[in-house]
């Protein structure tokens, strides 16, 4: 199962955080910081998998309290907690959490998964996610993700539902997304019907202006994604049928 999907930029600013297990806000921020710490340390070109023993990923049980942020206290707590159950060794391996990430231009895409997922498969899935975003936003860049975080979540919802992979076909994903977007627009324009048409167009213009006129920078993801990733992924992706 996929436990969490995170997007953050090179400075650790969250762009998307989606947890598929109940995690309180405070824990979410802690985890985000921890994972960023893990991931940002790594130079490019190394492997994209990380064992994440330091992560305090709370399960449903309340006995795992809020992580205190400092790894020292975590370590201490874990030590204390884990002394009694030595025999868990076998299960451990199966349910070991793994952080799988990819780094595109300014953004890190991070998936936290358990042992039931195929590592290489998830790596492909990140690729699917990014390409879907690319199609949905037409050359996606960090700013798109910032200003349309809700839509990013919707794209993600077409790929993963409740921690399980829903769809891996990019065409299907973007079709669904555009379908929903169309409906949304339709319902949004019904609001505008109430307004005098001239005002509505002004409002729309302003909205557009705001949208287009966002601060520059943030680097186009699309280009680098496309080439860079396709090359990297292509090497061992061959035969994985997400394109077809």
């Amino acid at each position: 199962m996929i436990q969490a999907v995170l997007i953050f930029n090179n400075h650790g600013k969250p762009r998307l955080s989606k947890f598929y297990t109940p995690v309180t806000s405070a824990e979410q921020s802690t985890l985000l910081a921890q994972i960023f710490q893990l991931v940002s340390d790594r130079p490019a070109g190394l492997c994209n998998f990380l064992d994440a023993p330091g992560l305090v990923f709370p399960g449903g049980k309340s006995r795992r309290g809020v992580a205190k942020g400092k790894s020292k206290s975590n370590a201490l707590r874990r030590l204390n907690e884990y002394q009694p159950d030595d025999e868990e060794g076998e299960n451990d391996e199966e349910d070991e959490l793994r952080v799988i990430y990819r780094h595109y231009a300014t953004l890190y895409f991070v998936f936290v998964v358990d042992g039931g997922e195929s590592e290489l498969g998830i790596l492909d899935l990140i690729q699917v996610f990014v390409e879907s975003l690319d199609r949905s936003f037409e050359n996606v860049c960090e700013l798109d993700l910032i200003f349309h975080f809700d839509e990013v979540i919707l794209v993600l919802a077409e790929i993963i539902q409740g921690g399980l992979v829903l769809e891996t076909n990019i065409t299907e994903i973007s079709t669904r997304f555009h379908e929903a977007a169309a409906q949304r627009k339709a319902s949004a324009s019904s609001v505008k019907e109430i307004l005098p048409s001239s005002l509505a167009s002004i409002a729309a213009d302003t909205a557009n202006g705001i949208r287009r006129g966002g601060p520059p920078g943030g680097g186009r993801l699309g280009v680098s994604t496309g080439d860079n990733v396709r090359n990297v992924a292509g090497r061992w992706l061959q035969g994985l049928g997400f394109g077809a």
Partner: protein
Amino acid sequence: MSFQLQNSEVLARLKPFGILFEKSLTDLIKGIRGHSKESPESLLQFFDTVIVECKNELATSDLETKAMAILKLTYLEMYGFDMSWSNFQILEVMASSKFQQKRIGYLAVIQSFKNDQDLLILATNQFKKDLNSYNHTEIGLALSGIATIVTPNLAKDINDDVVMKLSHSSPYIRKKAMLAMYKVILQYPESLRANFQRIIDKLDDEDTAVVSATINVICEISKKNPNIFVGYLPKFFSIMNNTSNNWLVIRILKLFQSLSKVEPRMKKRIMPSIVELMTKTNAYSLIYECINCIVSGDMLSADSSRDQETGKLCLDKLLLMFAKSDYNLVFVGLLTMYKILKKFPALIDDGAVRSFVLAHLGGNDIIIKEKALELCDLLVNEDNIGEIVKKLLFQLMPPESLDGKPSPKLIPERLRVSIASKIVSIASSNNYSNIPNFKWYVAVLKDIFNLSLFPESLVADNLISFESTKTIANLIGNEYVSLCIKVPSLRPTILNQVIIDATQDTRILEVCPVFLKYIYWIIGEYVDEIEYVGYDEEDETKVESLGLKLSSQVSIFNTLVNCQIDISLKRTSKKHFPISDKLRFLADSDVLTLLIQALVKLYSGILNTYLTLYGVNGELPRDKFIQMAYFLSKLINFLSNFEQHYHYEVQERSLSWLEFLKLCLEAMMGGDLAPIRELELEDLEYYKKLQVSEELEQELDLENSSDSDSDENLISNMSLNESVQSEEPEVSVLATDDLETFELAAEGRALALLNDLQSESGAKPETANELESIPMLLHPILSSMLKSHEIRPVAKNSQSNVPFPEELDLERQIVHSEELQGFEDEAEDELYDDTYIEEQLSSEQNSILPDSDVEREEARRKKERAARLQDDPYYLKSDEKKSKVSAKRKPKPLSPSPDQTRSPLLLSLAEIGESKRPKSLKSKVLKKEKVMVLDDEVVGNASPAPEEPVIKKPQKKTANVFKIDASNLEGFDLESSAKETTPGVDEYNIDLDAIRKLLAEDVEKKLKKKSKKSKSKSDTKTDAGKSTKSTKTDSKAGKSESREELVSNGEGPGTEIKTKKKKKKRAVIAD
């Protein structure tokens, strides 16, 4: 009502103008960006105002405004702001008829709802309504929502609606419904029972995505309980063979992995296909999953040669993958390689594997390094251990950047710990059988310690956490201890090369006082084994080596004990004995408890050396005698620091030893402390001088070399003086903490001692020194108490295997009550006689009586006492005792102490002293490179714990620490899967049994009886299984039991239901 409507309408109409007052999400985000550039405070302030605004917006009745506020809050939630207070408004927005708003509502629900029971009840209706909407997108939205926030109650209520969607016309809805089903089942296991067939049917859906989703769900459930779906193996198998979708194939492979745990026979059918798939496909991810399925699914058995071939094939494939030099492939490859090699150690001989692993061990990716590290112990043998350990040690050194300076980036703490523990575990495996040369190993340990705890490059004290320091210190410390115990010939080496330095090293005290625990223990235990090898050929040098031994002992002693000198000199900085001073205030009471014990042993060791060096028939010349007394008084002084220690154990130990030692001192000096004072004053004088000379040196700003020169002069001067004066201030000279001076001092010291000896032998004892006899309390009682049993390694579980002595009859009354009365008084007298009074008397009288008389007297008394004790119930007769002890543990008197047979009391005293240490039975000796390694001793023929040397324990702990979060997430799922197992076991194992039955040749007959039995069994089991774990193991046990029945009787359990299901099963098998 009408007013409200109007109101909202007005607001809506005013909206275009109100845009100035309501902030959109875009404004919010821009605001955050702007303010975060300014300062964190302004950002926080901004957040506060925004949240207040949102609150106000939520209070309006305009849905559009509310939706926007909710959207903003959802965004803020990502920054860690709680939005649970807005749950009701979220519901409101969710209920909007406008898709745009509904979408925002669902978004907020998905992101923020955290099992809020009250609200979920309200939400249930909304879910139901949306599920039955005509709009596919809305249904999809609702299904996503359910999949995220489902709770047991919601699951129960919503179950039927979700199930209906499984047969929706749109595949999009069907697959979403299927995934939502999984979450429903987790919360409401009954649903699986009721809708089992519908789920299975979805495996035949015409849309691949739906099939994929179904497999996905089955895979997740099977991970928790593989028994449920094991009957549909053939179905899965055919799906795998017929699809070209690699995602789906990978999923099914994962599923097989879980299923093969409960159905080992499936591998015969499946493995060939997987191998075929593996060789055919080009996708590396698929190749890897094939290998992983074979290996992790436990489909290879170690003793089948065909399986070994498959293993070899997998390994070759892996190596092929590695050739791509993609780190991701290397990572997963190493994971599986470990499993293959563990199963078929023979495959390691492939040179490619070894060189590959070693190459990645030295690579620059830390994660890969860690994985390669795990593989290390599989690669090691006696020939290459040196190379591999060297490689590992290199990893502890900070990587050098191009300009040759150590790069500022240090090796991560975690890696340091795991490398350290890996080296130790490699070396200590199989009772150190891989170690070619133990001196090398000691050096390695020393390197690990220094490299990992005292990296040279940086002021790294803060860079490694206290916990890791402790782990490493414990690891290395334990290793030294176990080496000392197990490899007797190594003790002098360890003492000389490690321990002596370690006691003088203030850094250890600052960084990892835990380490001292082991150091002190070793000092205490093996103080007599400090040896200077290479000296003991000739007689003369033997004396010299003894002198060196004594000087090291004394210098250790002084380092630890001499804090009083600094106090008297009122030195606050640049102390002569910083360690001793710090020890007084050491927080770690574990170390102190050991230190107290060790100091007493150390003193006893010094005394022994004195006796061998200067002693004549157990007596010492007057000056030496006084020196011993002086040492004793120093020890007493030091220990009295702990009289009031807050830790009860420290206090207790120091107090009881103090009592004993004070008695000894009294016995030695009899209240006349003047000679000790004298020595003390001389000592003080000396250090004052040293101080002055140091200050002088500082003023003159002398070079180091001349510094030590002057030191040497000083020392030799002193020792010359000493031989004239027959006093001994230079003993303390040795104790400077500077290693350099220490060595010089040791030399000077040895010289002095030689001089001493010569002068003594020349002039004979009578001239200057009359002999003084050491009080019996100190010798032999103290030393025999501490030394009469050697410590041996004992296997972990031996204690429980100690056989109950046959002749021990606890029922039999040994003494009748009337006899008892008479003995009591006598026994009391006896106590005094034995320990205190007698020693007092003898120590005083003995000095008057000639030796032979003493002995005779002794013998006579012994005999007398033996006679008296004949019937004493409190004493075991010596022969009786022997037999009993031998029945228990056959102690082998290695160092026969002079008083072994002297009195039973002594023996028992010694035993009390030793009782907390492991005892020995028979030592099996393992010859290896001229070094004897003692095996763990095993009591009886019961097998001990599988080769777990003492060191193993801390390692295991570290391993645990690093694995920790592996199962963290388990809780949520498992808990529910426990519930799910309950129906699963009693209903669905029938499917499994049906299959088994078909596989087995002859069925029929007697079925009813058997099946009933097994059914009732599984029933009770499910009842009992409340917690996840127990349910799991129970069901497993139940399975294996029923399997056994199958095998032995060749029949499968069947029930009434069986006949019903049988047909279906046959059909399944057929395809």
